[in-house]
């Protein structure tokens, strides 16, 4: 039984033709980076893991998380968190309500409020609970989105080009924060990017997806397979 996220011989097919194939394990606290040109199917891989594969795509293989096969589980029961390049904060909810949406049910109101306040404080956004998310800066939104995801208590974290919309200065800062939080919570992280700097900063294995359906693994350490 492995801890962490395990992709076992996962093949994504488009219209019946294989698009990409990945067979890899991500240990808790480690980051696997998937790189490749746009349109190669990186995001589709993430969609397969979250259980939201778009129409027209099929997949074979299995996804295991924390020792459970989640390949056929409903999307909301997988406990796989994801962050996109856009913050995707719910525009109709306040910052606090966005965080509350992530928080699993249970606990007293005061208790929940305290957890939300603490989460905001953790990323330097004390007192932001009542704010309209649309009035936040890009960096602030990214931080709220991260904390919302973490409050939902996921067992793995997927990142879909998460920093590409941020300017250079902010980018390093937010990246640092995301990886720190993931590491401290011992979350396996799978990041899709086409930015070499992101891949470098992640410090884990790197898979480069090519046109020929081949999978190349490089990086500091090879995975133990």
């Amino acid at each position, binding site marked *: 039984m492995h801890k962490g996220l395990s992709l076992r011989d996962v093949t994504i097919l488009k219209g019946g033709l294989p698009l990409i194939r990945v067979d890899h394990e991500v240990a808790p606290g480690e980051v696997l980076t998937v790189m490749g040109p746009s349109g190669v199917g990186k995001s589709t891989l993430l*969609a397969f893991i*979250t*259980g*939201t*594969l*778009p*129409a*027209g795509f099929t997949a074979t293989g299995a996804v295991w998380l924390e020792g459970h096969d989640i390949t056929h589980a*409903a*999307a*909301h*029961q*997988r*406990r*796989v*968190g*994801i962050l*996109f390049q*856009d913050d*995707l*904060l*719910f*525009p*109709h909810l306040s910052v606090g309500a966005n965080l509350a*949406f*992530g928080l*699993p049910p249970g606990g007293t109101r005061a208790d929940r409020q305290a957890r939300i306040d603490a989460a905001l404080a953790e990323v330097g956004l004390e007192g932001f609970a009542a704010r*309209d*998310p*649309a*009035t936040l800066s890009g960096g602030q939104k990214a931080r709220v989105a991260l904390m*919302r*995801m973490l409050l*939902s208590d*996921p067992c793995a974290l*997927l990142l879909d080009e998460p920093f590409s919309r941020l300017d250079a200065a902010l980018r390093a800062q937010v990246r640092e924060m995301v990886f720190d939080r993931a590491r401290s919570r011992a979350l396996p992280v799978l990041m899709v990017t086409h930015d070499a700097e992101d891949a470098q900063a992640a410090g884990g294995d790197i898979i480069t997806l090519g046109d020929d359906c081949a999978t190349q693994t490089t990086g500091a350490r090879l995975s133990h397979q």
Partner: protein
Amino acid sequence: MSRRRLLPLLPALTLLALLGPVAAGLWGTVLPAFGHLPAAGLTGPSLDPFRDLFGWAGLPRAVMLSVGTGVLATVISLSIVMLVTAGWSGTRAFRALERLLSPLLAVPHAAAAFGLAFLIAPSGWLARLASPGLTGWDQPPDLLIVQDSWGLAMTAGLIVKEVPFLLLITLAALGQADAQRSVRVAQALGYGRVTGWLKTVFPRVYAQIRPPVYVVLAYAMSVVDVAVILGPNTPPSLSVQIVKWMSHPDLSFRLEAAAGALLQLGLVIGALAVWRLGEMTVAALGRRWISSGARGKADPAVAGVALLAGSVSALAVFLGLVVMAIWSFAGFWGFPDALPDEMTLRNWARFGPGTLKALGETALIAVTVALVALVLTIGCLEAEYRHNIRVSQRAVWLLYLPLLIPQTAFLPGLQTLMLNLGADVGRVPVMLAHLVFVLPYVFLSLADPFRAWDARMGVIAAALRASPDRILWRVRLPMLLRPILTALAVGLAVSVGQYLATLLIGGGRVATLTTEAVALASGADRRAIGVYGLMQTGAALVPFALALLIPALVWRNRKGLRHA
């Protein structure tokens, strides 16, 4: 769990609500058309109904009226909309016209027709304003304007209502056609604005708006309420004559009505086929025109005329509403006085209570039908989303089908059939009949915004461990509040404006503002018509105002939804 089982049923239920009454009604029309009406002691098959129909001296003219007014109204309103869009989209004048026309979409056909009649009749407001000063008339000229034998007034009544409809449909299509850049490229190549638009954008836009254009053609050819108010009577158009035959005390006329209904259906199908041929011809000519390289010297003139026509069309409805309002408060108002001798509340005191009662009935039906249509629509769209179904163009045509079958072809048959089944007349059958017309518009109104919703919001919410139902109720529907309320308002307006469905299926017992207003047409009491027409317009317009107001209030502190 039960909801999960219910959801897949909703698309099937929707199709049944859409097509069931149409199919049943056509069946109920075919039988008597071939002489089979056992309840009246008549058994078929026989061709006598058609023999009687073709023996009616008024038929050639009635058919000509149906086809002529329908085709003319469609061609003119489509031309106005296309040329205005070509010449002016993106300009301030266009936005002004758009703002002027949008609310007119909700004005019921009957109210617009009454307003137009009050305006353009020889004793109408325009003649009053110009007389005797400009015209020298101290009594109205003996001119056949309203109810003219050629159906021109009726055509105008249809145009002023179809222009806003086609314009809004076109605006929706423009968004997907990348129009601005195409025109800019064409202009850079030396093309005039109109010519450039017609050569580069029109083909794409027309492909998108083709179904609604067909709906306009089918509707205009078979309209009843507008024809009753503005159309000729010597003879009337075929659809009006069908309704007259339906209500003839001599039962055998029902057979003739059924035969006429099938003829009406045939005419619409034929006209659509000819229209399709026309499209191909225009396409062929258009290709030759495009390769000719003509840059469009007359463009400014064409654009000017189109804008003028569009503005006149919008103004006609507005002024019509204004003159209806004046009549509703008028004391004695002789010709050629521009305004009544005195303004009085007497008319409202007389007719107000009656309108309130009709308003209650109208609202009850409209709210129920619009809500049912909304639930079915959201159910279909959500099922499509959850089960990853891609909707083909063919399925879209299914939605338009009930709007393409002339009302006079299936509603009379539906009435006969319902009676045979022992179904009681009254509100519920009327609601089901309304649903046939309301559902497509609610669906078409909501489908685009619903599908355009960023599905990553759903992925995020699911990753936050929200179930599909929770995502729907807590994220998707609140975010789509404005389009949902707009779709609801569209549904309400369509239901409020229904005339024939209410009249025939309600068995006369269901009195809505529209049936009451059209019933007043024969009496020509302009004060009463003014009161009912205004109430009818209000009933259709207020929901649109609320659809704008409520999201603005609810989301007043949510900048991200202000333009959603």
